[in-house]
């Protein structure tokens, strides 16, 4: 009863001093906005990083890297074989803990053209079908390479939608989606037939945006100029890169581009540019890597010119970065909320000094010190709560604004948790800030308070 009444009186008090109350709340509003905004930005970062992580092949992918031979093998550096198909075969046959091996032979600085149009893919790679699973590709149209393509080193290729967009036109620009199966494109001036195309990869955020725009387009029926934003780089770097992939059979890459030797040297180069593996059981990662290492040491005649790079390290990195960002963001937002709390304390002290007489009246008609204490505490908490709720609204707008400014995969995401924490924290700050004024108000003697002018 007293509780409800206290809230009502508190609201009246706030309403009676609108501008003063608003200025007081501003501190809390800013505090909540910075807390929610900060966590939304961090959440966006986290989402972006995780999506990019998956776009690059998922957590269980391990890269076999080349590295300079260690110092004690320096004299053997010239015999370092690098990663070759021999390694791939050895791993496939002798390392049962390795589920998948995907060799890649990349071509550098490739120009792809069709008629007048030309583009540079993010990567033009000779690969085995294992690459699909390795890099988490999904074929949307046509087929991938088969043994005959590989054995005969046929001039066929599978492309990402980004290449299609560049050479055949974007669906949203030309109004229909072209599926260029059977078309011939030139890779370094050699004709290749497109046999397959991947699905279009994009972040969650972009997918939503795409649907929204499509609805918008359906309404407008293509009125007005065509929309073009940037250079197909939407949705973040990782997705763009994945969409701009061109795959050709590994053997084709070898026969048509590498066996003649790289520019200038004239010496054939059988080394792979990439060798990725996936382990059969992620929980036995260490064991699997040890096994792969043993096999590779054999094929490399003991020369340690390779190392393993797991995505685990990267995930750890991401988590660490996010944790740090959260911590620093939380501290900054916490400080601004605290400052808001000091503002509330200040205004509550001023307010009770104005209301000494009122407090005296309440005591004369029977209010106990506890009644007065709770009254002031509730008023203070109500100011903070209203400020907190307004802060949520402001942070919503703030995050929308941020999202509009940066239409990327990293656009901030407000989480329910952050909102709850922010409001709870602001109420706690309000209650804390109210304690001192409440003690002061409760300690007025009724006679003194009634006499006060």
């Amino acid at each position, binding site marked *: 009863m007293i509780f409800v009444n206290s809230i009502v009186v508190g609201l009246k008090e706030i309403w009676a001093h609108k501008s003063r109350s608003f200025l007081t709340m501003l501190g809390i509003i800013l505090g909540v906005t910075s807390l929610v905004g900060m966590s939304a930005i961090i959440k966006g970062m986290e989402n972006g990083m995780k999506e990019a992580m998956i776009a690059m092949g998922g957590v269980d992918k391990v890269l076999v890297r080349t590295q300079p031979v260690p110092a004690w093998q320096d004299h053997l550096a010239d015999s370092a074989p690098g990663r070759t198909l021999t390694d791939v075969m050895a791993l496939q046959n002798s390392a049962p803990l390795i589920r998948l091996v995907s060799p890649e032979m990349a071509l550098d600085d490739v120009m792809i053209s069709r008629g007048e149009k030309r583009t540079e893919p993010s990567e033009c790679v000779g690969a085995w079908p294992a690459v699909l699973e390795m890099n988490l590709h999904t074929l949307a149209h046509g087929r991938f390479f088969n043994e005959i393509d590989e054995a005969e080193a046929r001039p066929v290729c599978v492309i990402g939608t980004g290449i299609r967009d560049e050479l055949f036109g974007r669906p949203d620009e030309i109004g229909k989606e072209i599926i260029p199966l059977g078309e011939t494109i030139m890779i370094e001036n050699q004709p290749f037939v497109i046999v397959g195309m991947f699905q279009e990869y994009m972040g969650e955020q972009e997918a939503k945006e795409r649907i929204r725009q499509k609805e918008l387009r359906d309404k407008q029926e293509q009125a007005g100029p065509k929309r073009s934003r940037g250079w197909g780089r939407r949705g973040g770097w990782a997705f763009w890169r994945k969409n701009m992939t061109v795959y050709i059979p590994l053997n084709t890459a070898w026969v048509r581009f590498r066996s003649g030797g790289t520019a200038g040297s004239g010496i054939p180069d059988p080394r792979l540019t990439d060798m990725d593996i996936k382990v059969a059981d992620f929980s036995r990662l260490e064991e699997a890597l040890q096994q792969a290492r043993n096999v590779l040491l054999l094929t490399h005649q003991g020369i340690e010119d390779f190392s393993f790079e797991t995505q685990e390290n990267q995930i750890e990195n991401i988590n660490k970065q996010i944790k740090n960002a959260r911590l620093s963001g939380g501290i900054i937002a916490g400080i601004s909320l605290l400052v808001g709390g000091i503002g509330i304390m200040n205004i509550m002290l001023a307010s009770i000094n104005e209301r000494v007489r009122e407090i005296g009246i309440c*005591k004369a008609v029977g209010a106990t010190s*506890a009644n007065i204490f709770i009254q002031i505490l509730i008023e203070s908490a109500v100011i903070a709560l209203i400020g907190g709720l307004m802060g949520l609204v402001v942070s919503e707008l703030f995050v929308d604004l941020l999202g509009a400014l940066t239409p990327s995969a990293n656009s901030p995401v407000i989480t329910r948790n952050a909102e709850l924490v922010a409001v709870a924290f602001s109420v706690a700050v309000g209650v804390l800030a109210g304690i001192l004024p409440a003690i002061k108000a409760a300690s007025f003697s009724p006679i003194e308070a009634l006499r006060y002018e």
Partner: protein
Amino acid sequence: MALLELRNVSKIYHLGGEEIRALDGVSLDIGGGEFVSIIGPSGSGKSTLMHILGCLDTPSHGTVTLDGTEVQRATPRELAHMRNRKIGFVFQFFNLLPKLNVVQNVELPMIYAGVSGRERRKRAEHALELVEMSHRLKNRPSQLSGGQQQRVAIARALVNDPKIVFADEPTGNLDTHTGEIILALFRKLSQEGRTIIIVTHNPEIAAVTPRRIEIRNGKIAEKVDERLAGLDRLAAKAGSLAPAA
């Protein structure tokens, strides 16, 4: 046993090492249903006496018994409780809360008494009926005249059905005519059997009450001041107003 019993009550203030006896050995009985005025010039100690009688303050020495409870031993919480249930105050400056409307002001003591919302409303409206203010329930105090404000204050004082109503210079801030109406209201309440104690420095007001207690220099004067004699005429005048109110 009297409703209010004071035995040898003193109140001593210390101001810069100097001892000030605001009340000095006051003994006093006030029975239920009495209509009493406490008079005396400013600084005589009458306000201190009222504070002690009204449980706003506790004596330095002596005993005060209100309705069987010893006030000087009560905790602040118990004092608040007694003010809430047994005492109603009417002040010179009305002391209504400016942000609450008339009904809410009258409901205030019942909130601290823990009365439920509907009951509160009912009793507040009834009390406002007694003082003939039923027509201004939703007004703010600032929208009322002084006399109306004082009537609302009286309704607030009555709403918890207290044993005693204290009025501290209840007409001090009103013009003569309005003051007389308020006094007539007190007279009516007294006739209905309530205990009413009016504190004033104005003999004309004191003349209205059957019993007068005069305070001088912190002590009860043996005999009522000469100046109060011959004021029966005023009393009669006030009495003649009563039926009109």
